[in-house]
């Protein structure tokens, strides 16, 4: 990192600020797509006519609901009637399972946008438990189960951020929570690079750069924990779900980096401090990455997407509308925090030079 680069670091801040303002405005103003957030019943009985109310999130008048379909083990049952009350959709079912056993059925709410030929569906996983009655012997499932094959997911037709069960409006936090971790990983990687550089060439300035990036990286980690904790409270009803491997990995990793601060503060000799801290930093970074990125993937279950048995954001949830803001948010926050880290280094360098001048 040369002088010229540091003098121009304000551009990092300005570019980052423009990107973050863009994501801030767009991220809050883009509406959420229509979705189905739940139903008033958890269970219906087969061969009995039963009415279920589905809660529609962010309904739009342009969407005409044609019917509700229950899907279970490759068979589909259509609702007998539907009544749309805006935020509530009432559907009546009379399901006969036939040879199938009791179990959960997914709900597909099929509709059509005004002026468009194609149909779209809203999806609710494991929407209803169908309890099999003793007199249920002949299935009344639809003869043509391929009806949903010709229907597109609403995300492909409607504009806006993806509407996902449980997440709802909180999906906007993706633009703040995830970039904090990306930024942290970037800063810690830079920190490790300069630690290696110090160990190789022995220039103290490399150690100061490493320390500055690491400090700001820790700040990023704390901000990631705070934004994640708020998000977890909204979606998982807990500030810190203790059984999630990713969260435990992050907690251990953060404490390892807190130990770095203690280690540095405990040594007085500048060169010895720099050498030991650099060795520690080079050792800790791969362990930290393993704790937050590799271990959660090996775990059986995790609440986080893309870890344990859950699918990644990228697969279903991160559509193009969200990508338009997500990637600029990552670049923006990395730029801003890199600027802060460079500023932190320059202050440290000033401080050290002043100490040298005082000693002379």
């Amino acid at each position, binding site marked *: 990192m040369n002088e010229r680069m540091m*003098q121009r*670091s*304000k551009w990092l*801040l*300005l570019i980052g*600020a423009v990107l*973050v*303002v863009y994501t*801030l*405005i767009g991220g*809050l*103003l883009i509406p959420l797509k229509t979705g189905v957030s739940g139903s008033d019943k958890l269970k219906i009985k087969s061969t009995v006519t039963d009415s279920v109310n589905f809660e529609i999130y962010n309904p739009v008048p342009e969407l005409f609901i044609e019917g509700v379909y229950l899907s279970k083990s490759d068979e589909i049952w259509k609702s007998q009637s539907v009544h749309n009350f805006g935020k509530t959709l009432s559907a009546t079912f009379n399901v006969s399972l036939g040879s199938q056993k009791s179990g959960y059925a997914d709900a597909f709410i099929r509709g059509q946008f005004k002026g468009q030929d194609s149909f779209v569906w809203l999806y609710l996983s494991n929407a209803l438990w169908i309890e099999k009655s003793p007199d249920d012997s002949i299935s009344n499932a639809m003869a043509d189960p391929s009806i949903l094959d010709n229907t597109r997911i609403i995300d492909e037709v409607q504009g806006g951020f993806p509407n996902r069960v449980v997440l709802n*409006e909180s999906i906007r936090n993706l633009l703040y929570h995830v970039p904090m971790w990306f930024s942290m990983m970037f800063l810690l990687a830079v920190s490790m690079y300069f630690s290696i550089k110090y160990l190789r060439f022995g220039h103290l300035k490399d150690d100061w750069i490493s320390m500055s990036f690491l400090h700001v990286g*820790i*700040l990023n980690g*704390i*901000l990631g*924990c*705070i934004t994640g*904790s708020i998000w977890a*409270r*909204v979606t998982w009803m*807990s*500030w*810190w779900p203790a059984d999630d491997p990713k969260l435990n990995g992050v907690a251990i990793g953060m404490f390892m980096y*807190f130990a770095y*601060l*203690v280690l540095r*503060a405990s040594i007085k000799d500048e060169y010895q401090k720099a050498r030991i801290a650099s060795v520690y930093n080079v050792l800790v970074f791969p362990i930290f990455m393993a704790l937050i990125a590799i271990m959660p993937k090996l775990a059986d279950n995790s609440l986080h997407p893309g870890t344990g048995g859950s699918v990644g954001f990228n697969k279903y949830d991160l559509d193009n509308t969200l990508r338009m803001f997500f990637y600029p948010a990552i670049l923006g926050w990395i730029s801003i925090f890199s*600027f*802060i880290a460079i*500023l932190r280094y*320059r*202050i440290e360098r*000033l401080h050290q*030079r*002043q100490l040298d*001048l005082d000693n002379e």
Partner: protein
Amino acid sequence: MKKLTNKIVIYGALLLPISLFGENEVQSSLSDQAAVFLSTNAKYHVVIAVLVVILLGLVAYGLILNRKISKLEANQK
């Protein structure tokens, strides 16, 4: 040692909100009510405006700090 204490206090203060909230139950409809209130009163724009002003204030502070440090560096040389 003083520097370390300061750091621990700062990082501790940042983590404090998480521990303070604990596991208190909040009515599940609270977020819905807030969303309805914000949308019906068109307050989203106020929220965005406040956030943008705060961010721009921080950016301005960063630029001022940058300039001050550049001056100090020039003086030191």
